Every structure is written in structure tokens, then in C-alpha cells.
């Protein structure tokens, strides 16, 4: 820039390329860091997937090679053919989705109230909403099982959903509250000025802007429900979720099954996160700037 504006008659000063070089290095550094973080996250998944689809003999080889010497699907198929594995997968999906819907249905309004209104005991409420996580699930689930038995909803997906919703409520409320805070009140007021009712204003302006936060909250909820074992194991007998049905016993299974089970556990959660990803990116692009 300085070179162009200077008069052409004089000798040009040497161009200082240092800042440019620095910038290049920094960019390369950022790229390298991105690659390193991606590898850090992806490599274990790749290895689990490779191991899940390799033969038993290949797993026992010592020293182990990076890419297994033979591929086989027999562990995976016998894992999936196990009694109740596929229905349990279905139950897990049902419980996960119901829990997401229920916890957003109840948690998001609570988060909105925390963000928009001041009321007596607000701080205490924010603290006590976390209390349900302070009690171990073992302590909670036994009396709950008795109650569900008496109400006739024991051993049903809905009973597990209720427990998971209660467990997910604190994170849902706190995450959605922080998102609603970041949506400016002006937008809502403008909508009111143009004739929206209060509910309409929320629906048409606040909710679309808060969508990324709701997506983040739903990912937390889904993964929590997907991984929960103890409550699901005590509250069900013949309609189990995947962790309660098979995954709890993986630690004592042969290696081949651990990889197959680990793979089965990872994939649906990854798919869910991939679906929710566009809303999350939206959040990083807008609200968290």
C-alpha cells in the first residue's frame, strides 16, 4: 500500500514481508490445530469401527497392526442377533426422543421465565433445579420403581422417559435460560408493537433466534438419556433400553463384543448430533459471536 502511493522516482524501500509470513504461519498453525483436534476426536471412533468389523483372530494378534489383517462382520451380526438387542435399540431411540420433547416442553418455558422475569427466589430456584442431579440415581430409582409399580406404569418406556426428563431438566433449563437472555428484548417488543400477542411474539421472534440453544440442549438431553444405565435397569424388566439390555455387561464380555457394542452405542448418538449440527453451527455463527 505504501509502495503504491510513494512517488515512482525514488527507490522503493524493501518490502517488509514479515507480517505476511507471520500471518501465513498463524494460518498454518490454526489449520494444524484443527487437524490435530479432529484426529484426536475421530481416531478412537475409527479404531472402534475398524475393530468392530475385524475378525477375532485379527483382534488377538500381538503386536497389533493399525489396520486389521482381516475384516469380518460375524461379531457385529451376532451382537445384533442377540435376543432383545434390536428392540432395545428401538426403546433407547424412543426414550431419547420422548425425553428431548418432554424436557424442551417443560424446560424451555422455565428457561424463558428465568431469562425474562425477575421474581422472588430466582437465585434459589436456579440452584435447587440442580438438586435432582445431586442425588445418586440408585437412591432415586428404587422408590420410583415402587411408585411406578403402584401406578401400573412399571416396565414401560414412558417410566424411563419420566426419570430421564427429570434428570435432564436442570441442563435444559439452564442452557435455554442463557440462550433466551442473549435474544434482545427489543425484537420481542417490536413484534408486540406490530400487533402480536405475547405468545405470538415469542413464537415468531424469540424461538427462531433461540433455536441453536434449544438444539444444544436437546443434544445434551439425548446423550444423557442414551447413556443412562442404572435407572433404566431398575425401572424395566421386559422393555429395556440398550444400555440396560446389553451394554452394562460389555465390560465383562470378550474384546470383540466390547468393540461391537461400543460401535452400536456411538453410531446413533453421532447421527443425532449430525442432524442437530446445523442448528449448533448457527449458534456459533450468531449468538455466540
Amino acid at each position, binding site marked *: 500500500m505504501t509502495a503504491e502511493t510513494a512517488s515512482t522516482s525514488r527507490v522503493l524501500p524493501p518490502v517488509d514481508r514479515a507480517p505476511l509470513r507471520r500471518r501465513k504461519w498463524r494460518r498454518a498453525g490454526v489449520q494444524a490445530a484443527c487437524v490435530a483436534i479432529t484426529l484426536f476426536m475421530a481416531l478412537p471412533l475409527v479404531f472402534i469401527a475398524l475393530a468392530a468389523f475385524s475378525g477375532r483372530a485379527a483382534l488377538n494378534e500381538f503386536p497389533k497392526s493399525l489396520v486389521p489383517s482381516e475384516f469380518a462382520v460375524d461379531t457385529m451380526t451376532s451382537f445384533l442377533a442377540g435376543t432383545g438387542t434390536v428392540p432395545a435399540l428401538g426403546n433407547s431411540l*424412543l426414550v431419547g426422543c420422548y425425553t428431548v420433547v418432554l424436557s424442551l416442553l417443560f424446560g424451555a418455558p422455565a428457561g424463558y421465565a428465568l431469562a425474562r422475569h425477575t421474581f422472588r427466589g430466582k437465585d434459589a430456584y436456579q440452584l435447587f433445579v440442580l438438586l435432582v442431579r445431586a442425588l445418586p440415581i440408585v437412591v432415586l430409582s428404587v422408590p420410583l420403581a415402587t411408585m411406578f409399580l*403402584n401406578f401400573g406404569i412399571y416396565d414401560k418406556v414412558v417410566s424411563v422417559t419420566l426419570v430421564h426428563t427429570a434428570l435432564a431438566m436442570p441442563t435444559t433449563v439452564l442452557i435455554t435460560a442463557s440462550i433466551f437472555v442473549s435474544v434482545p428484548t427489543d425484537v420481542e417488543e417490536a413484534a408486540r408493537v406490530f400487533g402480536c400477542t405475547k405468545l405470538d411474539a415469542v413464537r415468531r421472534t424469540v424461538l427462531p433466534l433461540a433455536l441453536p440453544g434449544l438444539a444444544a440442549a436437546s443434544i445434551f438431553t439425548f446423550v444423557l438419556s442414551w447413556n443412562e444405565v442404572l435407572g433404566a435397569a431398575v425401572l424395566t424388566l421386559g422393555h429395556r433400553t440398550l444400555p440396560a439390555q446389553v451394554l452394562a455387561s460389555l465390560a465383562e464380555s470378550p474384546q470383540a463384543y466390547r468393540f461391537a457394542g461400543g460401535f452400536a452405542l456411538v453410531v446413533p448418538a453421532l447421527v443425532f448430533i449430525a442432524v442437530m449440527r446445523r442448528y449448533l453451527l448457527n449458534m456459533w455463527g450468531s449468538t455466540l459471536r
Partner: protein
Amino acid sequence: MSRPGASRISRRTVLRGIAASAAGAGIAAFASGCTGFATTGNSGLVFLSTQFRPVEEAERFRELLRTVYPAEVSYVTSEEGPFIGQVRTQHDANSVQFALLGGVHGDLAPLVDGYLAEADGLLGELGDLGIPPEYLDLAKLGTRRSWYVPWAQASYLLAADEDALGQLPPGVREDELSYDDLLDWAIAARRANGNRPRFGFPAGPAGLLHRFLQGYLYPSFTGGQITTFRSPEAVRAWEYLRELWANCVPSSTTYEMMQEALVAGEATIAWDHMARLVDAPRTQPGRWRLLPAPRGPRGLGYMAVVTGLGLPAQSNDRAGATDLIKALSTASAQVELLRANAFLPVVRAELPDDLEPALRMSAEAVDAQRAADDAILALPPVGLAEREGEVTKVFQDCFRSIVLGGANIRSTLDSQARVLQRLLDELRVPCWAPDPVTGARCEVA
């Protein structure tokens, strides 16, 4: 704009109607999905058990149930903690949804206060099956009546490959080892392998090393498990284990099932649960031997894992469950269980000629352990249910500080004994074998 007559059914009302019916359909789908999909496989009587939880074992056992019992059985597995929780809550809510309970002795013992039906009549009907008297004694759970029918047994053994057997100290027989012989053997194996140890222990996070401490080292050296926890003999036992550990494969702290390390060639001598060793002789027949555990100054301490079948006090199918117990107590059914999941029969059973050599070997080694003149039967902790992990942790912590951390043995045992005593005081349980079972609560001397 709109015609007056048609204003009743505008586009908006139609759309609202569609939206409402879609919501209704959604709610209906939700309601129908409330129960979820059945994961039991069929609708027969429910057999709730803590055994054979891994998918493969569970499938083999379901297959066995189909062959030995004509009606359908839903085999449902559960971890120890939830198992007891479920039995108690369903009983207390008067809505028992299972007909038969299966578990190791320690899973059934906590249910003796009203949750199990007496099994004396059933045992009488079964007649003399040749169940070892010490197991029938166990089934009494410290009372005068029996509460379950012993079902299968397992134990812990040594495995060694043929090369390692050649390194035995001269004049020592491999099936009559003492702990000092074992140490000499581990040293000889290390020297023969370029000073790299060949003896392995399952000391990984999910390994069963604590069972070695509770059922083998302590009984063999001190004659007890809890009462002798901090005795002078216990100090000697820990000194011994330190020496043995110095001759162990260093990656023992990552092993969970020794068969994997044995097959991979990382170790040639190992101690573990027989079900966690048996794959080695199965995949490499002719290379591996399974041996009874060594004996110490007080005798041959061994741990028996005894599983039993119990009838719940309230049952939705008492007759079916009784028939199922009878079917599972036949010699042929128990041999099939040995074939399927490597659990040994408790009834008198002739082992068939076509039995896998690996299973025959483990059956013989377990028998040799139990039948030894100086055998000391030890049990995994009884009556602790989900708190058992805390007793396990006491033993594991001792191992970590004394053997791995090199801490002072006397002071470590004293401080861990206090932790153990506090736990036993809270639980108020009587001791279990090899400690005397008398008295209301177990005490560390």
C-alpha cells in the same frame, strides 16, 4: 371477497383441522410407543438372573433353556445392585413379575429376609443329586432351612503353557504347588526368558485380582479373610505378594481377562477365573494346562463361586419355576451348561467323552482344589449387595499402596482395617467363609 355461504369452511379451518388431526396422530403414536418394544424375546415365565450377562453367553444359555425345558422362558439378566432392588421393590409393591431367580450365593443371600420361598421341599423332591454338602450348607444362608437350589459352580485356577512347565523348579509337581514353589517358578520363567517376567495377574480395572487376595492369598496364609485382615500372617502374605509381583509381567495392571494375554503370548503362566482362562486352551489346544491353585502355610485356600436357583416368595408361576429348576438340576442339563458357558456341574455328573479337553481340564483342576485334604473354602463377600464394591476397594487399595506404591505394610493394613470395620459396622452382616459365620456382625480382629 369471500362468498357468504362458503365462509364456514375457509382454507384456514381446513388447515387447522389437518394440523389438529396430525397432532392427534402424533399423540396416538406417542401413547402406543409408551410401552416400548419387548426385549425378552418371548412371553414365557420370567427368569431373572445375574448370571451370563454378556450377549454371547446369554444367547447360549437361552438356547440351552430351549433344549432342556419344553415351555418358553424369558431369560432376563440384571446387574447385582439392580437385581436386589428389583426383587425387593416388586415384592413390596405386591406385583411380582418374575417366577425364578438365579444368582451367585452372594446375590441371593440378602433376599433371605422374606423375599425367597423355602427350598427344602423342592430339594427333598429332587432327591440325592450328589450336591457337595458344603454347598447345601451354603444354601441355608445361616438359618436352619434351605433357600435355594445349588445350580452351578466356578472357581479360579492357574494356567501355564508347556514351555513354562519345563521351567518348574526341580522336584516340584505342577499340580501340588506351594506359594513358595510358585515364586521360584515365576523367577525361573523370568530368567529363562531373558529376564523378562512371564507370570501374569489380572490387575486391570475390571480384573479379578481382588478375588486372589480374598480367596487365595488370605485364606492360604492366614486361614481367614476378614477377621485375619491385619494379623501378623497377613503381613507375611503381603511381603510374599510383593516378591511375586516383582516377577510379574509389568503390564499386568492392564489385564482384565488373562486368556487374551495368554493367547497373545504376553504371559505364559497366569491366575484367573476359569471362565476367563478357558479360551486359551480352547483356541490353542495342546499348549495350555489348567492347574489347581497353590497352597500356603495354612492350607489350600480357594474361592468357590456357587450359583443357585431361588423361588421368590411371591411368584406368578410357582409350578412352572419348580419344573424349570428340576429341568436345570439334571446331570445332562448341567453338563450342557458346562459346554455352553464353562460353569461346572454341582450335581453328580459323569463328564462325557466328547467333552472339550479345555473344559475337562478345568473340571479336574477345580475338583482337585475342592477335594484337597487341606482345602479352605472361601466365598466372595456375602450379604453386601451393591456395597460389595467397597470391600473390594479396600483390598484393591491395599494392593495399590503396598505392592505398587511400596507403602509400609503394617500401617497400611491398620488404616484399611479401620475402613473395612466402619463398613461392616454399618452393614451389620455376619462373616462369611472362611471366617466363622457365627455372631451378628463381622469384626476385623
